[in-house]
């Protein structure tokens, strides 16, 4: 690996520059300068601090946009990749959407995607060293040659980088706490530089040297190089690093892929390392799976840290097919089909994919042809065959049949044999069906089968019902129940909801997640934008973050590399496994299973949260609205049979076969199915909540410690003070959930908070935290604490509402970014808000508040506020950055009253009081389902930027929440950091039909001036019939009348709507 450090760095510089120039048009000029700086920083790599990071990020962003040319990437040969389309598709095409999202998310902060730059750098390298690149790719293991920087690798790295970045970000907060923020920034820079130089050993050395000074940085940096190849190459280095964890990934051929990963690495990092090692480009069909405590197979969420998902001490994972392509012939590369074949052989051998005798024999014969080549009459012995496993239990008769059929395949290339294998396997009725045990409404045992086309219901082996994705309006789960709302039939007027009882909450969530993912992947053209999801839904924010099948197909068309050479070793492995370990029979396999993670069918993304939730939370429903897109994937399937074309006649299989190394397989499909829903409760929950907060402070936000402490305090306070309220909220949530199916909508109208700004800040901080953390925390907190309502909402959010936005193809990047932030924010916000409302603790919270309020979405928005509406997600991001400034300013500047209207999820509807608002300009809309999350938009009025904060999606479950904040321009400038003093906290609750008003008065001393803030909260609950605008206007009017001498500084509107109903939007 010791090679051209210098050259690498140079390469980067050059490419970056080149890229920058083209990119310039898009990004502002400032970016360029920043980029330059970043480049320099990268060169210097280690020690340039934060500035460099920002610039680097900016660069990355720009680059990302441009990359098209380089996109061809894989082998460094940038052929014809269309320049036009390439802009985003270029490099990024190989990147799964979630990567992009992450990038974007990171972008919010300074992080953005570094991937592109790296890739570019890689490309450059390729050009320079095209020859080398090829070699390197073939070897993957970084040979000593300088060629290492092949495009593929680079891409991989680049992909991995985003993860790292994210990690970094998440870590940054922690670092800030512990070591200080300064370190974190440099780390980023270093990362960038490292990425560019990954290949060069020199960098490693540098890192090492640096490590002494900055351990943390080193760790992160090291991760990339070490995790993959480097790790293999130089184990010694690994040992040095502190937080590295050794992962063992079982590859489909049964071999083990050891990979050292930074402890906080996210799933995608490891996934890309594996894909890189496999030389796999069409990776979107695959995923990493692991076994949870209940021995259920779960999918590793690429966007979350591995350690938060894997409970067991041993990081044992398996690389599996996650989405079975309905038409494997449409896959672009033979290697992808080969891996699919390996997965299917596993499925068949384990019994998970049932076949008839004849089919077992036929498929087995293709496997033989692919691995052994033409039947050799001289090798009449059946021995060689008994090494293969063609069926869960294979007989001599079957083996004879296999040989008989094998003879007929003479002349067929391995790729052709694989294709034939797949053409037959795909027709099997259980191909790609992910089964889950459940009971119907009458308690009868059934199986839920999730597949590309929809949801299948089995009783025993019989299909008793089928719900195609287009028929499903909504997918939700609540506790251990899983619901689907069915589109009314031709003769039916009303939609119906079908419920299933899962063994436990976790399993219910797992099914839900699988449905979300499969629907998105197979049914949608693009993943849902997280932001939108926020608006519509409550509940879990989980969404499929990867590319859809349509996207991955599109990307695959751009693959332009010579068919990569690969060895087919599966059969050997199988044989070995048979010999050594008793994996042959399904039963055996199950027994042996513990080691093998192999089956990936049952994906559980986030178990921990669920488990904890299941026990405690009541309101955990999650709704997914599936919007039916007209886009049908089916059409795509038809095109085919280009396969033959693609079938590259790779070298003969026999050789590879001979070489194969056997390992135990993981065949635990059956277990999965039968797997009992082990106790969902996890220890993790306990541990999780605390750590997450600490670990994932928002990098962007300056307020670190405060937020946490405040949150805790608030929580506690809330519990005591707001217990009553909380309960109410909970009930509300429940009602909403329940109601939703019926169609009733609960709308909470505007809560007017005079000066709640402080609260907002808190929220932001938590946002930074990883989603996972939030979930955990929320759950825990929620239940124990009176705050439960918030928690519920959060939990629900986590659970997921998945709004498949068919038509809208939100940019992946944005989406990705938003969701994370949102989630984080939501969690934080919720808690703080609750606290804030009852208690005047604005000070603490205030820290983060960004001055500029942005009008994101104004579904409820009043006419007065006609500011720019931005998507809540964006706002959120912005707010974070701004937040620190804004709050302080706001307070001092305007003593005036800020009214925030928050919609509270509370059951009680209430009429509102309004505290006057005079000039609500800024509007922040967040879409947190939970009322608690207050979106505090801080008073910085002007901008319609995003101040918000707030609410992201609170945990509220089913309801859809929108928060709109109107801020008065007056507030600008008022930023006093001083906390206000709570003069009085009056809570007046009048229950008229549906209106509740809560008023808080807070006095704040600012520089000798005292501000009196009156915060009123008005909750309006009612059917969609309610004219929200009118209600809001009335509330504001009343507020002004009540306090003629005060000005309305802020209006925050939280709108919660049951997703199902949605009439209100």
């Amino acid at each position, binding site marked *: 690996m010791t090679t051209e450090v210098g050259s690498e760095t140079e390469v980067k510089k050059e490419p970056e520059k080149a890229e920058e120039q083209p990119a310039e048009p898009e990004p502002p000029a400032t970016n360029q300068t920043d980029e330059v700086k970043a480049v320099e920083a990268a060169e210097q790599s280690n020690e340039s601090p934060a500035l460099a990071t920002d610039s680097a990020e900016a660069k990355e962003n720009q680059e990302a946009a441009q990359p098209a040319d380089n996109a061809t990437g894989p082998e460094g040969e940038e052929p014809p990749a269309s320049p036009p389309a390439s802009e985003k598709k270029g490099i990024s095409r190989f990147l799964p959407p979630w990567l992009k999202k992450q990038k974007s998310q990171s972008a919010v902060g300074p992080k953005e995607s570094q991937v592109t730059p790296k890739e570019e750098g890689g490309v450059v390298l390729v050009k320079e060293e095209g020859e080398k690149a090829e070699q390197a790719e073939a070897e993957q293991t970084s040979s000593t040659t300088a060629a290492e920087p092949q495009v593929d690798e680079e891409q991989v790295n680049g992909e991995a980088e985003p993860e790292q970045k994210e990690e970094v970000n998440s870590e940054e907060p922690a670092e800030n706490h512990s070591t200080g923020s300064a370190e974190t920034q440099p780390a980023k820079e270093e990362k960038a530089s490292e990425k560019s130089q990954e290949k060069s050993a020199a960098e490693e050395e540098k890192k090492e040297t640096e490590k002494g000074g900055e351990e943390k940085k080193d760790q992160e940096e090291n991760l990339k190089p070490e995790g993959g190849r480097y790790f293999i190459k130089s184990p010694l280095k690994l040992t040095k690093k502190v937080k590295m964890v050794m992962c063992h990934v079982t590859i489909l051929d049964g071999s083990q892929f050891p990979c050292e990963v930074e402890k906080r690495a996210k799933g995608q990092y490891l996934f890309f390392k594996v894909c890189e090692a496999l030389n796999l480009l069409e990776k979107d069909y695959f995923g990493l799976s692991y076994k949870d405590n209940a021995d259920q197979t779960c999918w590793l969420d690429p966007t979350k840290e591995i350690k938060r998902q894997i409970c067991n001490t041993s990081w044992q994972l398996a690389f599996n097919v996650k989405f079975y392509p309905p038409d494997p012939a449409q896959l672009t590369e033979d290697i992808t089909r080969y891996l699919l074949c390996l997965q299917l052989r596993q499925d068949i051998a384990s019994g998970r994919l049932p076949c*008839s005798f004849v089919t077992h*024999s036929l498929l087995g014969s293709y496997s033989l042809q692919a691995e052994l080549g033409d039947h050799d009459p001289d090798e009449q012995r059946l021995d060689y065959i008994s090494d293969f496993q063609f069926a869960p239990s294979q007989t001599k008769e079957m083996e004879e049949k296999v040989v008989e059929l094998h003879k007929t395949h003479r002349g067929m290339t391995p790729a052709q044999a694989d294709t034939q294998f797949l053409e037959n396997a795909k027709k099997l009725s259980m191909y790609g069906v992910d089964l889950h045990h459940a009971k119907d409404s009458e308690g009868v045992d059934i199986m839920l089968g999730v597949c590309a*086309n929809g949801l299948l219901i089995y009783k025993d082996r019989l299909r008793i019902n089928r719900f*195609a994705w287009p028929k499903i309006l909504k997918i939700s789960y609540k506790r251990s129940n899983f619901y689907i709302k069915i589109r009314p039939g031709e003769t039916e007027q009303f939609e119906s909801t079908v419920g299933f009882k899962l063994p436990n909450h976790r399993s219910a969530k797992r099914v839900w997640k699988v449905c979300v993912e499969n629907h998105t992947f197979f049914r949608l053209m693009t993943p849902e934008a997280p932001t939108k999801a926020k608006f519509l839904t409550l509940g879990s924010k989980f969404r499929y973050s990867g590319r859809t099948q349509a996207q991955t197909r599109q990307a695959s068309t751009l693959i332009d590399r010579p068919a990569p050479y690969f060895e087919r070793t599966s059969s050997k492995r199988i044989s070995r496994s048979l010999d050594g370990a008793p994996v042959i029979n399904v039963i055996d396999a199950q027994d042996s299973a513990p080691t093998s993670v192999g089956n990936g069918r049952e994906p559980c993304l986030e178990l921990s949260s669920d488990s904890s939730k299941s026990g405690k939370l009541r309101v955990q429903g999650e709704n997914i609205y599936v919007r039916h897109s007209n886009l049908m994937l089916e059409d795509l399937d038809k095109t085919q049979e280009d396969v033959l074309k693609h079938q590259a006649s790779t070298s003969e299989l026999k050789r590879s076969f001979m070489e194969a190394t056997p390992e135990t397989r993981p065949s635990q499909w059956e277990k999965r199915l039968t797997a009992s829903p082990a106790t969902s409760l996890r220890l993790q929950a306990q541990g999780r909540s605390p750590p997450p907060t600490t670990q994932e402070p928002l990098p962007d936000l300056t307020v670190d410690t405060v937020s946490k402490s405040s949150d805790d305090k608030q929580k506690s306070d809330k519990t005591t003070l707001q217990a009553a309220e909380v309960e109410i909220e909970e009930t509300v949530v429940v009602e909403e959930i329940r109601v939703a199916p019926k169609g009733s909508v609960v709308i909470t109208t505007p809560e007017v908070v005079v000066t709640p700004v402080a609260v907002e800040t808190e929220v932001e901080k938590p946002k930074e935290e990883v989603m996972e953390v939030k979930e955990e925390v929320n759950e825990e907190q929620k239940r124990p604490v009176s705050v439960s309502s918030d928690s519920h909402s959060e939990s629900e959010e986590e659970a997921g509402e998945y709004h498949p936005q068919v038509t809208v193809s939100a940019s992946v990047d944005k989406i990705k970014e938003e969701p994370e932030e949102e989630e984080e924010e939501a969690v934080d916000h919720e808690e703080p808000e609750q606290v804030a409302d009852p208690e005047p603790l604005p000070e603490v919270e205030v820290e983060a508040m960004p001055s500029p309020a942005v009008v994101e979405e104004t579904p409820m928005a009043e006419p007065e506020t006609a500011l720019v509406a931005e998507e809540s997600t964006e706002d959120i991001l912005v707010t974070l950055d701004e937040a620190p400034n804004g709050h302080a300013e706001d307070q001092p500047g305007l003593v005036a009253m800020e009214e925030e209207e928050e919609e509270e999820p509370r059951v009680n509807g209430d009429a509102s009081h309004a505290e006057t608002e005079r000039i609500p300009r800024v509007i922040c809309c967040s879409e947190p389902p939970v009322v608690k999350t207050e979106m505090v938009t801080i008073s910085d009025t002007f901008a319609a930027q995003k101040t918000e904060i707030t609410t992201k999606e609170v945990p509220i479950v089913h309801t859809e929440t929108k928060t709109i904040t109107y801020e008065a321009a007056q507030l600008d400038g008022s930023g006093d950091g001083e906390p206000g003093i709570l003069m009085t906290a009056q809570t007046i609750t009048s229950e008229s039909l549906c209106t509740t008003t809560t008023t808080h008065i807070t006095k704040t001393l600012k520089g000798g001036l005292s501000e009196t803030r009156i915060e009123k909260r008005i909750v309006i609950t009612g059917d969609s019939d309610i004219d929200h605008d009118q209600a809001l206007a009335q509330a504001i009017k009343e507020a002004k009348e009540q306090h003629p001498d005060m000005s309305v500084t802020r209006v925050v509107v939280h709108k919660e709507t049951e997703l199902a109903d949605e009439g209100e939007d």
Partner: protein
Amino acid sequence: MAGVMADFGNFTHAVVRAIPSSLAKEALRMNVSDVDLEKARREHEVYVGVLKQKLGLEVIELPADESLPDCVFVEDAAVVCGDTALITRPGAESRRKETAAIRQTLKELGLNIVDMSDETATLDGGDVLFTGREFFVGLSKRTNQRGAEILADAFKDYAVSTVPVTDGLHLKSFCSMGGPGLIVIGSSEPAQKALKIMQQMSDHRYDKLTVPDDIAANTIYMNLPGKGHVLLHCTPEEFPESAKVFEKLKDHMLMPVSNMEKVKVDGALTCCSVLINMKAKV
């Protein structure tokens, strides 16, 4: 080489059974009717002749068993798909013994025999609709869930979906396959309802050919080398309106076959033969 789910409609052999004299009086029927035994036998001879001479199938004719008045309806006794034959357990007690001769015959043909030994299971072949890609099993008076489960176990490659049959004797009393992806369906409400269920349950899309008369929807489709799409259907004499519908099938070799007498004892065209594709045997 034969792949999974290939060669739909391609048959080489047919198993039929003669009509016993007891059919006229003792055969089960849903509606009271008098059967002209001689006429029925003539019909059957024509039926067998079509299979043998016109279509060139290897027809195995089993002798009638007077103790089994319904024995001519061999379809109910076995479900053959590929090289596997599921010997059923007919829902009608009086017909249970019909399977013995069929089983013996199929076994001699070299098929893999699967028996339905579960005493609680019942299945009539007339309730089994094989579309080439999947099975639909009618849950009727003669067929229960357990029987369908066993069928699903016997043919693991295929999805097996259940369809409630409220009216009529069997699922195939009002539907059948008229070609690859083509379901011939009766126009009655129960028939249409069943079709909708089948369409909902399937991952595949089927075209439908609706005929005015339910029983006319029972046809025999074959895809024979040298002959292409072949469809045996009702005669214009029996169901003039339905026959017109079939005549619209331009790609099919249409072969009207009279079945007037056997219908009286609920015997449809498909009921009288078990079709086998020995080539499919891998």
